[in-house]
Each structure stands twice: as C-alpha cells, then as structure tokens.
C-alpha cells in the first residue's frame, strides 16, 4: 500500500505544479494588473509604474513565477497586495467561515430533508400533501438569492428578530453566532433539503411496502415503531449517498449566499481578489481548490487500491 502511495505521489505533485503554472499564466493574461488597482482613481502612469516596481511586477514572468514557487515550497503563500496581511492567515480565516456556513446548512438540510420526507409518508390528508408538495417545489426552484432577500425582509425588517447580515463566529459567541448563521444556512440548505426529502420519501415508501413492514403491521407493531425502527434505517443509505453529493452543491452555493448575507467567506474573498487583481490571493485560492481536488482524487485511488488488490499490484 505504501508503495502504491509512493507511486501515485509524483503524479499528484506534477498536477499541482502544472496547475500552479497555468494559474499563474492565466492571471497575467487577463487585462488589468494589481498596480493599476492600487493606484486608485484617476492615477498617473508614473504612479502605476512606481507601484509595479515596488511589487516586483516589472520583473520577467518566469522570475516572478520562480519566486512564488520558492515561497510556496517554504509554506509562504505571500502577502495580499490589497489587504496587506498574510495570505495563509486570510485563507485560513475565510475558509473557516465558509465551512461554518456549509456545516450549518448541512445540519439544516439533513434535518429539514428528513422532516419533510417523513411527513411526506405520514401526512395523509389532501391539504397536508399539497402543502408539503408546495414547500418542496418552492424550496427547490426559488433561487437562494431570492429566498435570501425574502427571509431578510420578513425576519430582519418586517419582524426584526434576526440580523440582516454579517458574521459572528458560533465558536466565539454561540448564541449570537447562531443567530447570524440561521438565515444564510437555512437559505443555502433549502434546495438540498428538498432533494433529500424526495429521496427520504421514496425510500420510506419503498421500505414500508416491504414484507417485513407488512408483517410487523399484521403482528400489531405500532406504526411509529415500524417507521422509526424498521423503515427509516433501510431508507437512509441512498439518502446518505445523495447527501454526500449535496455537500459539493452547498459549498458552491455558499459563494452566492456569502454575498447576500455579507458573510466573509472564501467566495467573497475570491470575488474581491479577482476584481482587484490581487494575484497572491487568487493564486492561493485557486491552487488550494486544485489541491483539495488532487487530495480527494488521491484518497479515492487509495480506497480503490485498498478494496481491489489488482489496482495496487497492477
């Protein structure tokens, strides 16, 4: 297994190296450079040239790339041109915020998905079914951008019980942090919850129609016990598979939600860095995302190798 890992590592590093080069070049190919952004409104060419020299952007591209790579190897992601701080600190802080939002929405997604799915098989009357179906459809089709502003209008303006936007970490102040998290996490969770609810409902309907469920019923087991003890555990595995896929959707969706709720996460940082051509920050964010992909790919390969000896021996 170690041998297999050692065999796979060079190609993983190769991908990272290639990605770093491509990211570096593409950013320089896009019109606009950091010196022009740092020169403010109505700048003179002299000011732009002075800033460019100051940042070392007047050096040959390969020399700039070499410096960045050498710093990377030492674990130094550089300093943000615009914000001024260490890129590693900035990335760590913003990633933490995005993960906080994603984790919160995952909890909501799972809770709501299960609740709506279970209600889908337990609510029998026509009105209830129509209502559940409407909630599901609305959650699925209304873009988070729209539902976000609707919730803000209701819970921050018309009935001000929650803040309209901003961020206080739940780790710093759980009570206040939870209130800041509530709306963005809920909005982000809604489409995923609707998807999960469908899988839960389908899974439950199928499980409740199985012989063991009918037998239990004929033996007089309480319907609630049949649902929770027998049907739900059998309906959950496919739901968990879908939930795994939804995590990616949640992280992607977080970028939009961060803008709506002024949540200072990775998405907002990337957007700001691209707009301002803050090369060290964009490079770090993009390379980080590539690294995540490479690691996940590597872990997947390792899992396959673990399961199937032909892979690691082949």
């Amino acid at each position, binding site marked *: 297994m170690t041998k297999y890992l050692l065999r796979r590592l060079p190609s993983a590093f190769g991908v990272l190296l290639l990605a770093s080069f491509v990211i570096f070049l593409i950013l320089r190919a896009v019109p606009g450079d950091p010196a022009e952004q740092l020169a*403010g409104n109505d700048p003179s060419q002299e*000011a732009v040239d002075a800033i460019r020299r100051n940042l070392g952007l007047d050096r040959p591209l390969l020399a700039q790339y070499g410096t960045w790579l050498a710093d990377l190897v030492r674990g130094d992601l550089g300093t943000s041109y615009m914000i001024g701080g260490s890129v590693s600190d900035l990335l760590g802080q913003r990633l933490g915020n995005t993960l906080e939002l994603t984790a919160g929405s995952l909890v909501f997604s799972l809770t709501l998905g299960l609740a709506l799915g279970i209600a889908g098989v337990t609510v029998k009357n026509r009105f209830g079914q129509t209502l559940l179906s409407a909630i599901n459809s609305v959650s699925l089709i209304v873009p988070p951008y729209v539902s976000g502003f609707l919730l803000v209008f209701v819970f*921050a*303006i018309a009935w001000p019980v929650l803040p309209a936007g901003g961020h206080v970490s739940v780790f710093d102040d759980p009570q*206040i942090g939870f209130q800041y998290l509530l709306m963005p996490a809920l909005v982000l969770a809604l489409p995923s919850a609707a998807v999960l609810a469908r899988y839960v409902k389908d899974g439950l309907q199928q499980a409740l129609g199985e012989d063991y469920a009918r037998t239990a019923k004929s033996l007089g087991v309480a319907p609630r016990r*049949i649902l929770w003890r027998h049907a739900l555990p059998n309906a959950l595995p496919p739901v968990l598979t879908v939930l795994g896929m939804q995590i990616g959707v949640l992280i992607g969706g977080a970028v939009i939600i961060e*803008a709506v709720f*002024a949540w200072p996460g990775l998405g907002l940082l990337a957007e700001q860095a691209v*707009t301002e051509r803050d090369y060290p920050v964009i490079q770090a964010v993009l390379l980080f995302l590539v690294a995540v992909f490479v690691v996940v790919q590597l872990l997947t390969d390792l899992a396959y190798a673990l399961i199937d000896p032909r892979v690691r021996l082949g």
Partner: protein
Amino acid sequence: MPAVPSLDTSRRTVLRAAGAGAVLLASAGCKSAVDENTNPAGGGSSGTPKRGGTLQIGSMVDFTPALLFTQNSFSVLSRLVFNTLTAYDRNLVPQPQLAKSWQVAPDGTSVTFQLRENVRFHSGRPFTSEDVVFAINNLKEAKRSAQLRATAAVVSDFTVTSPTELTLRLAHPVSNLFDLFEFMIITDRETVEEAVTGKKLIGTGPFVFKTWTPGASLSFSRNPEYFVPERPYFDGVEVRIFPQAESLLSALRSKQIQLASGLSGRDIAPIKSDNQFAIQEFDTGGGATYVGVNVSVPPLQDKRIRQAISYAINRRRIVEQAFGGYGFASSAPWPKSSPAYSEATAKRYPYDPARAKALLAEAGATSLDLPLGFLSTAPAVGQMVQFDLEQIGIKTTLEPMEPAQFQTRLIGQTLPALWTGQHGFAQVHPSTLAVSAYPFNEAKNSSKFSDPGYTEIVQRAWRQVDPNGPVAKAAYQDLSEVLLDQQFVIDLVVLANLHATTSNLQGVAQNEFSALDLDNAYLA
C-alpha cells in the same frame, strides 16, 4: 403501489413540533443579535446632542490599506482616524484643523503655518511640524499614487521654525494649494509602512483604530484626547462591510446599521419616502458621469461631431432613470459650489437631437458606427447613451469592461472611440480637475486630446496666487469654456454624494473629498 401501514400524523405530534420550534427560537433569543446592534444611545429630545453609543456604519467596499493616500471608495472613513491641516467651508475658504493659522506670501510662493499645540497622535507622540513635512514628502512619492501629487510636488522646500511653526516654499504659486491640505491626511510618520499594510492606523482624529477583520468589519473607539473639546459624542464606530447594495439597504432598514455609505440614488428608492430614514445629500464629492471621446478615432477629431453627441444625450433622463433623481444634468463638470459653476455652462448643451443632426450633417458625418465602452458594473448610462445616439443616426456597439480592465485601458489610452465613466476632482478649485483627474490631464489624457491653448489655460488657472480672486475666476471661466467647446470629455450628470441614515442620526458632515466628519454626530 404497495400497501403502506397507516402512519397518520397526530395533532399531538404537530403541537410537539411547534413547541420544539418555539423553544429553539426562544433559546436563540436569550441574547439577541438584533438588540446588540440596536444602538442604546438616542431617545433624547430631537436636536439635543446625546453622548455615548456606537455608531454602526455599513459600507459596500472594504478598507484597502494600500490606497490610504489616494482618494478611493473607502476614503469616506479616513477622517475618523486622521485630520487634515485645514478644512474647507462651503465656500471653499480654508478653516483651521491641525493648523490654527497661516499666512500666504503676497507672491504666492510660500505659506507659513502655525500648528495647534498639545495635539497628540493616538500613540501618545506629540504632533509637530516634522509631521507636516513628512506628510507632504510622502505624497510626493509616486508609489503613494495621491491624486494631488502634482500639487505636493510644487512644495520645494521647508523651513521648520519650531515644533508648531513651519514655512513651505513653492516652486510657483498654485491656486489649489489648500485643496492639497484638504486632501492630505496627517499620519504618524513612525508607523506609515504599517499603515499601508493595515496593521496600524495612527492619526490624531476623533476615533482610534482598534481592529480590522478583512471583508467583515472595522472598529474604532473614541479618542479621549481629541483636540476638539467634548468631541466626539459617540463612544465608538463600527463599520461593517456589505458588498451588495440590497444587503446594505436591508441592514439599514432593519436598523442593524444607522448609516449606509455607497448606495446610489436608485438603490435607496425603497426608503425615499419612509420617515424612519433620512437621505443626506451632499453636492460635492460624488463626481460626475461623462462620455469620453477618443479624439484619435476618425472622424471624432472633428469637434462638431463631439458637440453633436453632447446635444444628442438626454441628460435629465439619465438623472431620473440611472441615478434615481439625485444629482443634476450638466454639460460642465462643476458642482454648484464650485467657483467655475454657472447655470449657463451647466445648460450649454440642452437635449436637442435636431441640432445634433444638423451638426453631424455640417461635419459630413454619415452612417457612423462606433464602439461604446462602459463599466460592466454600471451599464445603465452606457445603454441610455446608445439609445440617444441611435436617434441621431450614430450606431454604437456596446463594449462592456470590468473595472480592472477599464482602469488599464483608461491609463493606457486604449479606450474605444466612446466610453462612459465617472470622474472626480471638480468639487474643489477647478485647476485640480485639470492637473489631478486623468481624463482631463492636459499633459496626457485618455482622450488623447492635446492642444496648446488648453495647456495654456490649465497652467494659467493652476498658477494663480489668489484662488478666489478675479484673475483666477476669469481663468476658471476660460477653462470651463475650453472644455465645453472641445468636448473631449462630455459631462452628463454631476452626481450627488448620498448617505442613507436612520432619521435620528444627526450632525454628520463630510469634507470636499467625501471623508465622513463625525465630530458632531450623535443619535437624537
């Protein structure tokens, strides 16, 4: 369809779920984030200044420390931490700030300042003449990219007489010297490099910089040793970043913040007639919207075609539809407080498509097809200009540019035949526009417009001893006239600088460069 055991949801289950929800909400409500944001100050009788509380400000842009010495979107907040040497009143007459008095030499080539005694930086170090020397020399450095660098560069020598008195010698007289002192913040010279990286911001201003969480917030506390007695009223200021206009407005409507900075006239439409909120409109510092003309693109070298474009544009419609009715239509760049403003110049090019067509015919320009660049973040004006030009037979192709790309092409003189944009620097002495705003720069501008007559007028307007004297005013009129005649920059709307606030926020002022002055601000 398999037979499903009956699992009807009972009323009890519904009640239990509702109860759990209520408990959840109640537990979340033990300590309310909304209450924490609601300012405890206020509630006094209207018009009575009340001490205490933290002012919550919402801003659409974050602090960019590297831009500390330039005018930029966040410089609205620079006056919280820093002071300037002097501050203009509404008639552009300088008033004391860190300088308590001054004497300008009769020939305009030197100025002697007496500084306030007993002023200290937030670090505790006394403010002295050497800090003024440093501030001016600092602005001379190209890497600081201060728009008034040309004026700072005119200061050729300093004589420091005492810690509170110094004389500045100038290479030649300039009419906008006090524009420089309105613009130039006095920073602690010992920590300036830490200031441009956002680590330390040390000034003499009413508030002390405490923390900055990039992308989220900045906080400031009251400076107990501020040189203005009994000021400021607030105990602190908290600035929160809301990158989207809708989010910023929502934060204001929910009273999470008391002042929203950076919203446009269109953004604030929902609260315009709501008496819980007030729109504070400043007629300076908002800049102006214009159509730039690249005169190197045939046949735009013919000024009659540029004038035709100016007549063809319905400026009032742009004010109403693109800016929500704030600002005013004007052919000239000057706000009403400018010494160069006159109603005649503002109305020089009324909306007159027939006259525009006649000018085009006179210039022999038929079937024009020109690219029209615009900022992708502000498409409305570009689209309206396109429509208006089509009415006189000029076809345009819209060319969106993101801000960074626009900036590159603006500086590199590679903008297309026509473009829409915004410029600043018309709110102070008129010569500042021509020496500090790139679209108007007589030596090099985005329009590639060059004319010895223009250069002579700009230099004459700039090199005046008395900026408010009759000779200077005549030069400003000449400057205005040449801009209106040549139309390489076609001004459309002089924009209003807007602050949307809760109606109980009083005493907010700003300087000519849009920096918020909260010395006298309080919640009534």
